């Protein structure tokens, strides 16, 4: 039997698995080129928001259209795609987006972080350290970190151009003044490459340190706001803070009930109507891998008792 060449395998996979009447990965080629140009510019200017012609996608704004457009423009038939939503591979959104690319691009998909070449994510960075041959694509709702204080686009563009970022510290000051400490816990602003201040997307601040000097390429897509930005590999990313109120990440007094991890971001899960709860790794793949290796957590939630209120 003659061996089928790699090329033939590719094109047969393309024919079998991709949808009839649609271009590879849904977007037409000119759109992909436009998005790639924007992405290239973004990579060349770390943290700078590049406007792009966001297209109509088969899902509404607010559901990840920006991330999908970026992924669609860079994905090739040989890529392996992982999609997570708040750390989990099995939530509705993650499943749908993964299926979308499986159908329109015929690519391999995976839940295992280290097997993926492209990871599209909403609101989390995987716990497993990313490598230099991987790309992570973030879904971004509001790309403009100054929007909370300055509604005018004209003015925010000037502020970025002139690095007038005093107001960002005003935001932190306000937190400390009202609550005694910085309470911003997600979408915590960062300064990239000692220059532009950027919104890291609504990832928990726990994940911010992962962005600093990350070996993988980080791309950010905001479909509704029509912006793409990027952090090239091995770039300095520093979370804003005060000298006397330095940046701190979250910590838990519990570990993961399933795998026992005390180094990952934990979700609190309420398990009954009596207040019982347990803490579980938000990164479902990370947790599953640990369990496969034999790690175990304290298990089922304990019953809630009166003395627990103190």
């Amino acid at each position, binding site marked *: 039997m003659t061996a089928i060449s790699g090329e033939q395998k590719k094109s047969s996979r393309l024919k079998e698995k991709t949808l009839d009447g649609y271009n590879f990965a849904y977007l037409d080629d000119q759109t992909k080129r436009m998005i790639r140009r924007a992405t290239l510019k973004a990579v060349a200017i770390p943290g700078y928001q590049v406007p792009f012609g966001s297209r109509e996608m088969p899902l509404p704004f607010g559901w990840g259209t920006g991330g999908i457009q970026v992924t669609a423009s860079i994905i090739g038939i040989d890529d392996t795609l992982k999609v997570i939503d708040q750390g989990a591979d099995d939530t509705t959104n993650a499943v749908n987006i993964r299926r979308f690319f499986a159908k329109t691009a015929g690519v391999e998909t995976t839940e295992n972080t280290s097997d993926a070449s492209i990871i599209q994510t909403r609101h989390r960075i995987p716990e497993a350290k990313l490598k230099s041959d991987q790309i992570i694509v973030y879904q971004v709702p509001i790309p403009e970190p100054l929007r909370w*204080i300055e509604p005018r686009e004209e003015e925010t563009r*000037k502020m970025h151009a*002139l690095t*007038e*970022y*005093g*107001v960002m*510290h*005003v*935001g*932190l*000051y*306000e937190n*400390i*003044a*009202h609550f005694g400490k910085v309470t911003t816990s997600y979408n915590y602003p960062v300064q990239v490459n000692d220059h532009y201040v950027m919104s890291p997307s609504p990832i928990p601040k726990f994940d911010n340190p992962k962005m600093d000097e990350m070996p993988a390429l980080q791309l950010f897509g905001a479909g509704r706001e029509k912006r793409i930005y990027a952090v090239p590999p091995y770039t300095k990313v520093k979370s804003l803070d*005060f*000298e*006397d*109120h330095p940046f701190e990440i979250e910590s838990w007094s519990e570990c993961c009930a399933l795998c026992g991890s005390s180094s990952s971001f934990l979700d609190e899960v309420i398990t009954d109507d009596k207040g019982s709860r347990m803490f579980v790794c938000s990164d479902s793949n990370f947790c599953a891998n640990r369990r496969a290796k034999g790690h175990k957590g304290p298990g089922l939630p304990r019953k809630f008792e009166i003395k627990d209120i103190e």
Partner: protein
Amino acid sequence: MTNVLLSAKNLSHHYASQVGCIDINFDIYPGEVLGVVGESGSGKTTLLKNISGLLQPSSGSVKFDTRLDGLKDIYLLSEPERRLLMRTDWGIVFQNARDGLRMNVSAGANVGERLMAIGARNYGDIRNEATDWLQNVEIGLERIDHYPETFSGGMLQRLQIARNLVTKPRLVFMDEPTSGLDVSVQARLLDLIRGLVSQLGIACIIVSHDLGVMRLLSNRLIVMHQGRVVEQGLTDQVLDDPQHPYTQLLVSSILPV
């Protein structure tokens, strides 16, 4: 003799065919308070915008004695340089306090913002400075974390002043600082301004239609009418011995109390 702080030469501004101000010339020295008085439509607000960097004049120049480079035309500076100047060495107190404050952050943050903008990164220090300044402008310290939305008109003006003075500007522009305020509130604000100006040696350019305010605050006066300067001189001289017909009319029109 000290150097001129701000120098306006042959300053004119036209709005299409409408005249804003024509051929304005004056110099202001450190520590002087210059009043610009005129009725509605006299061009005083246009003049203020021209000299405070908010509106480029149609012709003429506005030169400021910058700390590092001496006398420079402010409209020939690059935009970043000009914006930095306006945030540090200058202050602008707007007629409507809402134009000069951030209404959705606390009083303390409003006062501390300029410091944070020039790189202050110690929360404790910033808060201490904000506290000092609120005291200087007689705003109760218990209001430091309150939002300006909850402040009265007089307090808003005082907050504006604190916000501007925190970077120790050498020149402060004020546009009708007391208009719309109750008389007793006005009085308190004027006292504050007088005190701060003399203590800190700030030069001030105040635009107002109120001659009483001018008598109290300014030591020099410019009278504007239909876009032109009709009389210039020491405040007491212009008010006590007005030369120009328009000035004489203005002075004689003040209602006695």
